[in-house]
């Protein structure tokens, strides 16, 4: 699967190199080009595996802090009691079998000038090109009183793993008639429909096991992803069980009191038996500390190559970037990872990177047998901004029968199986 660039482009590129007084890199130097990828999640695993497939001459080293990956996708099924932690946990054996060198360590620093990465034990790795897909970190302190200790009482469960298990255990321990509070953040954040899928699947669990209970969503937004579809489905499946308080109605949570199990909003105070705070987020701390976000919360990239706008030679993917019209989803991160692999293969071969085209589809389960979707096609404009293709894409129809919802629930599972197999299988 090589040779995406036609001769005309190669000539054009050679011309550009000549104009700027550069020589094309000799072919012998390409033999052992080194790419380091940090993060074996949706963006990093996709990029590393596709790079191996497209350009076997490139050495790929993948640095990941954890020895397995727990997907956020389908973690809401664990909360709803229709999925298990083991179903959403993946190892990296298949990546090693591809010939990727795996290092289990936290990357502590990136030095763009010397093109090196420093690991927790002090080891340094040098690279010709670096790919970083670190996901998000929680902005502790953005909500008054919400720190790492508070997250053990009011879990965010916005990174899957122990936090998911903790929130599930709290839901199981709650008495019938209890109140579950979900605090949803303002844009942008990881997985725009995620809080509402979560509310749905928790309501599904409560409706079956603790029917006198309710779910209150306190929102820092006035609208949300697939809102009409979610709202209609809640009325149909869980009437009266889910209450949504918009930003305009004072929904934004500004402070928490873990000891008293209460949260403060602009106008009110709410008590909950289980409180899930989904706080504001930012790019993973590694890239913030390395200056790759230019002092902001997210990193700016060229959407054609995913190369950083501030540090040449460093490519950034997934939740950590400002991705234009593309939402922060695992599907998007992996789509970007594939495009980035093609771009890096071309750049290291002194070819023009291919013009990108990407897809995203976010399925949400409202119940085990009720799925809804939003899908779009994306291109990159002349400025490097990622734009939705007009006339394509959209959400599931509002008027559809249960067979259609069942189909989309099946496809949601199919897509999960398919993508996780592409990344880890």
């Amino acid at each position: 699967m090589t040779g995406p660039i036609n001769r005309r482009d190669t000539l054009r590129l050679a011309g550009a190199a000549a104009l700027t007084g550069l020589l094309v890199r000799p072919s012998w130097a390409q033999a052992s080009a080194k790419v380091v990828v940090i993060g074996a999640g949706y963006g990093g695993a996709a990029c590393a595996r596709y790079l191996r497939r497209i350009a076997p001459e490139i050495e790929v080293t993948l640095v990941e802090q954890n020895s397995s990956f727990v997907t956020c996708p389908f973690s809401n099924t664990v909360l709803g009691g229709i999925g298990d932690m083991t179903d959403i946990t993946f190892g990296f054996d298949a990546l090693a079998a591809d010939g990727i060198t795996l290092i289990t360590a936290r990357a502590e620093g990136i030095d763009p000038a010397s093109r090196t990465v420093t690991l927790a034990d002090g080891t340094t790795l040098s690279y010709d090109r670096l790919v970083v897909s670190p996901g998000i970190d929680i902005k502790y302190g953005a909500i008054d009183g919400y720190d790492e200790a508070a997250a053990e009482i009011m879990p965010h469960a916005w990174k899957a793993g122990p936090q998911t298990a903790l929130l599930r255990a709290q839901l199981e321990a709650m008495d019938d008639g209890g109140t579950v509070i979900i605090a949803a953040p303002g844009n942008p954040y990881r997985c725009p429909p995620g809080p509402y899928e979560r509310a749905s699947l928790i309501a599904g669990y409560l409706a079956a096991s603790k029917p006198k209970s309710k779910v209150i969503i306190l929102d820092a937004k006035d609208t949300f992803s697939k809102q009409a579809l979610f709202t209609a489905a809640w009325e149909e499946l869980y009437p009266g069980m889910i209450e949504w308080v918009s930003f305009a109605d004072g929904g934004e949570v500004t402070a928490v009191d873990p000891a008293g199990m209460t949260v403060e909003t602009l106008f009110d105070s709410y008590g909950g038996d289980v409180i899930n705070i989904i706080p504001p987020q930012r790019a993973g701390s590694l890239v913030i500390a390395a200056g790759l976000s230019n002092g902001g919360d997210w990193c700016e990239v060229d959407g054609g190559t995913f190369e950083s706008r501030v540090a040449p030679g460093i490519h950034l993917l997934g939740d950590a970037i400002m991705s234009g019209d593309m939402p922060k989803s695992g599907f998007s991160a992996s789509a970007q990872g594939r495009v980035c692999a093609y771009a890096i293969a071309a750049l290291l071969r002194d070819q023009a990177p291919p013009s990108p085209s990407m897809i995203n589809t976010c399925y949400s389960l409202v119940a085990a047998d009720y799925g809804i979707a939003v899908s779009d096609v994306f291109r990159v404009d002349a400025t490097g901004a990622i734009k939705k293709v007009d006339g394509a894409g959209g959400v599931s129809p509002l008027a559809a029968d249960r067979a259609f919802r069942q189909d989309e629930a099946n496809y949601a599972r199919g897509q999960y199986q398919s993508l996780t197999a592409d990344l880890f299988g």
Partner: protein
Amino acid sequence: MLKHMGLWATFAVGLWAGSPIMADETAPQLLASQCLACHNPVKGNAIPRLGTDAERIKTMLLAFRADTMPSTIMGKLAKGYTDAEIDALAAEIASWGEGERK
């Protein structure tokens, strides 16, 4: 040798920074890489496998795009591609061996 490579890489980056020179058309391989996120034929996947016959793949994509073949999301996605891209996608997917289909 490493040192030389680093130097070359720096030059290459200097060349790309700002306005990368992109190929005009999207490479068929890259276009098709986007399909595999869903159409990876793992056991029990409710999402249909990609076809092996270029003409048939093309006919289906065109029918999805024209809404003459019912679908959940394929109609919405197919509308994002030109005739030439649909041709290229169909040829690329049909060219895959069983192994590449996974």
